[in-house]
């Protein structure tokens, strides 16, 4: 699915990612954990194509293509999705309208017919029901005036509608109460499939009780310092990040 090799990235001349190698195969869920400032969110944003970050070294292959050569919108059309840590408020654009435009861009790129407003509405309503979300989310303006939890749930709704091949969740669990966390986790689990992969970036082990990962990687100072199975998350929870950092030193 995705193969990251010796990736280095910096922002404003400051190197944040200092040589990451990571391969995620179809159907796998990988968790990226690490303390604040370890580069987790940077990695997620570099993969999505945020222009503020400069890749200084290394390569990323996504479904056989050179990901770093693609514009952010083309990455999305090829099947990459980033659930934002801080979803952006866009007043004046309805959630449904936006989502239909986005889905049709992706469908067109993949050679599929575009959906008209009615067909789309039916699709999106089904998704809302499946995810146990409230339908008023659809009529509202994109993320505008949404609570923290609503914004995160909305990201999951977008993911469910756009059906990406690789979804990157950037601290989607932060600031969620237990009910919202469940809805988010159920949404991800429902989408798990043989041909779909996930990279779940999180600070806490809590989310991983609900989304059980195949692999866990610990990031520190821009490098993966430890990788393991889902048990690694529990071990981290117990011993704290100091443990891997000390071991590293």
């Amino acid at each position: 699915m995705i193969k990251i090799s010796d990736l280095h990235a910096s922002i404003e001349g400051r190197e944040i990612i200092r040589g990451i190698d990571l391969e995620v195969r179809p159907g796998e869920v990988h968790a990226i954990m690490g303390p604040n400032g370890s580069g987790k969110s940077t990695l997620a944003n570099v993969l999505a194509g945020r222009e503020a970050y400069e890749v200084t070294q290394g390569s990323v292959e996504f479904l056989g293509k050179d990901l770093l050569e693609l514009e952010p919108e083309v990455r999305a059309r090829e099947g990459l999705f980033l659930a934002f840590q801080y979803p952006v408020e866009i007043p004046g654009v309805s959630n449904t309208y936006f989502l239909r435009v986005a889905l049709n861009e992706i469908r067109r790129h993949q050679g599929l017919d575009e959906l008209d407003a009615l067909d789309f509405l039916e699709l999106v309503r089904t998704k809302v029901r499946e995810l146990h979300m409230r339908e008023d989310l659809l009529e509202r303006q994109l993320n505008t005036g949404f609570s923290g939890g609503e914004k995160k749930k909305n990201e999951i709704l977008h993911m469910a509608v756009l059906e990406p091949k690789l979804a990157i969740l950037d601290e989607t669990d932060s600031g969620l109460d237990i009910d919202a966390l469940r809805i988010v986790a159920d949404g991800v689990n429902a989408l798990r499939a043989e041909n779909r992969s996930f990279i779940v970036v999180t600070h806490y082990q809590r989310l991983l009780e609900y989304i059980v990962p195949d692999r866990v990687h610990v990031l520190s100072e821009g490098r993966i310092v430890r990788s393991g199975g889902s048990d690694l998350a529990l071990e981290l929870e117990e011993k704290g990040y100091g443990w891997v950092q000390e071991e590293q030193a």
Partner: protein
Amino acid sequence: MSPSMKTDGFKPLGETLSGERAQLLQAFHKQGLPGPRSENWKYTRLKELAEREWRAAGKAGIDGATELLAQAEELAGKDLPCLVLLNGRFQPELSRLGTLPAGCEAGALEPADETALLAAAIQRGGERHPLDTLNAAAFQGGAVIRVQPGAQAALHLVHLLSESGEDATCLQSRVRVEVGEGAKLELRESFLADAPSAEILAGQVAEIRLARDSRCEHIRLQRAGSVEWLYTLQHIDQLSGSRYDGLTLGLDGQLVRNESSACLRESGAHCDFSSLGLLDDVRHMDSHTWMDHAVPSCTSGQNFRSVLADRSRSVYSGHILVRQDAQLTDAVQDSKALLLSAEARANARPQLEIYADDVKCTHGSTVGSLEEEQLFYLRSRGIDSVRARQLLVRAFCAEVLESLSDSSFRERLETLVGERMENIHG
């Protein structure tokens, strides 16, 4: 007083004026045009205006009037009764007033209205706005709309503007609107010009009076094409419990100046001014407001937005006056300019003058380009940057239009805005 500019270019207008009108033109010459050091005209220069020779329009017709009219009606609503003025003069054969509901009269300014207007203007003399004085001296006609107490009406008022030949043409008109107690008026007003490059100075002065508990929704569609100068001065006078909602859509015109003032003279009145300007090339749109809270417990809102491409410029100057007696005033003012080019400019001057202590007045003003964060969010979902920009600009505009009560009219305006944006998008 700041030094004003000479008005010699307007002398030819005097050739056909006599009596009070000649007297008013003299007063205008004495006042002069506001000069560059006048605070209220800091960003809008009238130098070029002062340098031309202005003549009044003849009585000639207009080419393609029916097409222009059809275009205006398509947008404002084909079913509405329609009152057409050509260069200020009432056009009964183009108008359609048979469908006006009972309790509403609309037609040309009557000689009695004209006499009263001139007398009032003379009385006020030199204190007036020079462009107001010019209008009083030279108006060629206008319209009166009256809605009787308790009645409800909707009307489309159309201003067709046409130049009169080789000279620069000065067109002046007046509109008087009276909405009776408990009555309701939906007024849509279109400004349209025929020539591809019209050397026209179009001035319009409107007086709108709202009796107790009356309502007026007033939408002005300024599609003055290539008219070089368009200025409007409107004054709203409100009694208790009345509500005025005004929206101006500026789509065209080289230099547009809109001044709106309201006097909330009895408690419980609400006045709302909003405006959306879409500007490109070197177009210039200047909006001035004056909101006078004279008594307690009135509310007002102002929402002014502009989208600017190329080397265009917008100006917003909003004055809120809360007099000493006007406790429990709630006044909100907001202006936003979206710059699509590095050479476009926007100026905002909020002015709050508050003499009462128990009031709520807020103002906000932003000038900026599209937010990178919003663009990236849209792109990360598969929408290319051109489309993402369009979406954001439309959204910016939609926020001004969303208050409109007639949803199909609102959708037509949104479509028009979208089409216009596609043309001017940088």
